[in-house]
Structure formats: structure tokens, C-alpha cells
């Protein structure tokens, strides 16, 4: 067994054993089931279309993981956020929420929120904001489920386990599905990428604040506590 391999995969692990010990007629053990642990996340599985209920059920069975689904029917399994990233994310969520309450035109959402995009992906951005009117336009039967709508404004915060290529594809997906503005924040690099419909992404490095525009004109994100949550 190679040293990198998670304990759960070692022969004899109870869970693996029951799932893989399916003997075929000639006694050969079929071992196509895998158990991966948190050190091997993110992981992507091909699962095909799922109902909202099936997806919500899967999320409920794995409360420690964050799950998304791509438009191609891939299930994306993400690990718990590292602690430092959580402090940064909370700072972003709080600033957006405080501004949204004063501005009154829209509502802010935290990173646990699931959205059903027009391309059928189920995504969960690190922070999001949407016009109240777009919520009021929703079919009331969709209200208690994943909303089938794309937020007007999205923020993604890069964590240590996020690949920048994957995040950039996600940002393009937000715009393609109707977001009017999206920010990709890389706190380690102190860099922000600004995504606007129909334009190349604009990169800013080392800024101490970032001004909203379009749907969130008037919002100003103070980046100092995002770069360093210990800052006074």
C-alpha cells in the first residue's frame, strides 16, 4: 500500500471491505468501489442528473463537506474550509450583508447557500447578492427549494485547496448564467480579478479596498481585514 493512500482504503477497512467484497461467480473479487478521505479532496464524481431532493439528501448525509454539481452532471466534493479562509470569508459576507441592509435593493447570502443555475449546475458561491425583484419574480413553489436563478453579484474567495484554473472557469460560468458582476479574491496573493459581462477579467493587486459597480454600485469592500483578519 503506497504511503499516500488513506487508511480507509487499506485492505481490511470495514467500510471498504463490505463495499468491495462482491464476489463474482468465479470467486474473483470485484473492487471498483473507492473510499476517499478529506485529504484527497477536492474530488469530482460523474453522477448524471439528480433531483433537488436527491442532491439535498446527499448534502445532508455529508454535513462536513461542501458539494456542488456542474452543468455536465459532475459532483464536486470540497473539503471543509481551512480556518483562516473562514475568517476572511466571514469578513466579506458581513461587509456585503451590512451594505445590502442599508442599500435595501437586494439581499446578501452566505457561502452555505445553494443555487440552481440556468445551465443546471448547482453552485454555492462564497458570497452572493441578488436584486429583491428577482426573488419576487420566482415561482412561489420554488421558494423553499434551491432557487432556479443566478445571483446578480458573486464573490469567490480562493482557498488553499482551490485551483485557480477551476475558479476562473467558475467565474466565466457565473457570467454566462446571468451574473452582472463577479469578483475572484485571492487573499494570499492579495489579488482581485473583476469579471464583467462581455469583458476580459481585470486584475488588481495589492488594493486596500474595492468599489462595487453595476448591480452593487455603492458597495465598497474593505480589503484590509480580508488580507489580514488580525488587522485592527
Amino acid at each position, binding site marked *: *500500500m*503506497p*504511503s*499516500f*493512500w*488513506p487508511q*480507509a482504503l487499506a485492505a481490511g477497512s470495514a*467500510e471498504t471491505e463490505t*463495499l468491495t467484497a462482491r464476489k463474482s461467480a468465479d470467486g474473483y473479487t*470485484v*473492487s*471498483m*468501489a*473507492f*473510499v*476517499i*478521505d*478529506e485529504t*484527497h*479532496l*477536492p*474530488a*469530482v*464524481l*460523474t*453522477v448524471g442528473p439528480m433531483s433537488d431532493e436527491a442532491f439535498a439528501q446527499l448534502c445532508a448525509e*455529508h454535513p*462536513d*463537506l461542501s458539494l456542488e454539481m456542474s452543468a*455536465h452532471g459532475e*459532483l464536486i*466534493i470540497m473539503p471543509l474550509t481551512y480556518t483562516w479562509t473562514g475568517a476572511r470569508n466571514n469578513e466579506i459576507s458581513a461587509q456585503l450583508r451590512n451594505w445590502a441592509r442599508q442599500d435595501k435593493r437586494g439581499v446578501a447570502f452566505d457561502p452555505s447557500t445553494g443555487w440552481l443555475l440556468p445551465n443546471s449546475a448547482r453552485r454555492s458561491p462564497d458570497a452572493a447578492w441578488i436584486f429583491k425583484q428577482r426573488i419576487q419574480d420566482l415561482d412561489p413553489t420554488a421558494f423553499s427549494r434551491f432557487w432556479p436563478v443566478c445571483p446578480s453579484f458573486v464573490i469567490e474567495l480562493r482557498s488553499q*485547496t482551490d*485551483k485557480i*484554473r477551476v475558479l476562473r472557469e467558475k467565474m466565466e460560468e457565473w457570467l454566462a448564467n446571468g451574473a452582472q458582476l463577479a469578483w475572484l479574491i485571492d487573499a494570499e496573493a492579495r489579488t482581485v480579478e473583476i469579471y464583467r459581462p462581455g469583458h476580459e477579467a481585470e486584475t488588481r493587486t495589492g488594493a486596500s479596498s474595492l468599489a462595487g459597480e453595476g448591480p452593487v454600485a455603492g458597495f465598497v469592500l474593505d480589503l484590509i481585514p480580508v488580507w489580514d483578519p488580525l488587522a485592527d
Partner: protein
Amino acid sequence: MPFLIQDGQLPATFTAGPMTDDDFAALCADHPDLSFEMTAEGEIIIMAPAYSFTAARNAKICAALYNWAEKDGRGITFDSSAGFVLPNGARRSPDACWLLTSRFAPEDRKGFMHLCPDFVIELRSDTDRLNPLQRKLQEYLANGAQLGWLLDPETESVEIYRPDGHMERIAGTTRVEGEGPVAGFVLELARVWNPLGK
């Protein structure tokens, strides 16, 4: 927090750290029913066995390439079970490939060869998405392949990847001609599109 991946959920990818060739070979040996690749970014891709019809198509391709290579004499053909470690660190197994014999080093007789084959063919299966396959072909070319073909039985089309970075797509064709390293090789595609034909 363990998460179960079942065979109906493949292909799947998970994140692994750097691995030695021996580690990777041990992983493959532990799961003889599955095939594995590793991206340059350290993701391991777990693939289910090919559907039978796809494998029949692949056998036609490998046989045609083998027959040509034997006559040609300059190189050697590999089937889809061969693993290569590309210069960018990715571990890949093309569906069929060909390599100049002169590129063999004595130490290559054991273990994975650390190079990119000169000519690579990928065959799209029913479960393959086109985008990842196209990226794979681009990766082979970026890592030194002189020619790459992506065969798509669904549309009966061929995408030809050349080292200048350009891709040429020929739809609805029944043959494709080799060039560059495999000039002279001709693949009759009617037998690939329909392995049941004569």
C-alpha cells in the same frame, strides 16, 4: 468524513500529492479493474473499463497502427494499457500511440517511460466529454508529440493536432492519413466507426 465512490460514478478525480512511479504502479495494481491517470496538477483520474464496443474500435486502431509500424520498421506501437510520464509530470495512457525506437533508453525496459510518444490517438467513448479529451490532445502536443488524432465515432470525425498549435477537424470522413512522424500510415475509419463491418 470518508466519501464512497461507486463504479457507476466514474470517471472520478481526486486530489493526491506528488507520487513516485512505484506508488502509482501500486495504486494501479491494487485496482486491476480500473484504469488511472494523473494530471500535471496532481489529480488522479479513475476510469471504469471501456464499454465493449469502444474496446473493439480501439483494437481495430491498435491493429492498424501495429501492422503499419511493423512494415515501417522505425518505431513501436503501444496499446491503451501503456502508461507514460510526460515532461509536465502528468501520467497518461493514450488509447494508441507510436514512438521512434531510437528514443528508447536501456532503463526504459522497466517502469514507465518518462517521455511523450511521437504520435498519439485518443478514441472518444460514449462517456467521454469532448472538452477534456481536446485538452488532453493539446497536452500531448505541448509535451512533445509530433501528431495527435482525436477520433469521435459519434460524429464520425477526426481532429488532427499538429505541433504548430493548430487543430484541423474533418467531419464525416472514412479515412485519415498520417503525416510527420507517421507519414505513410493510413487509418481506414469505416472499420473504426463500425467494428462489425468487414
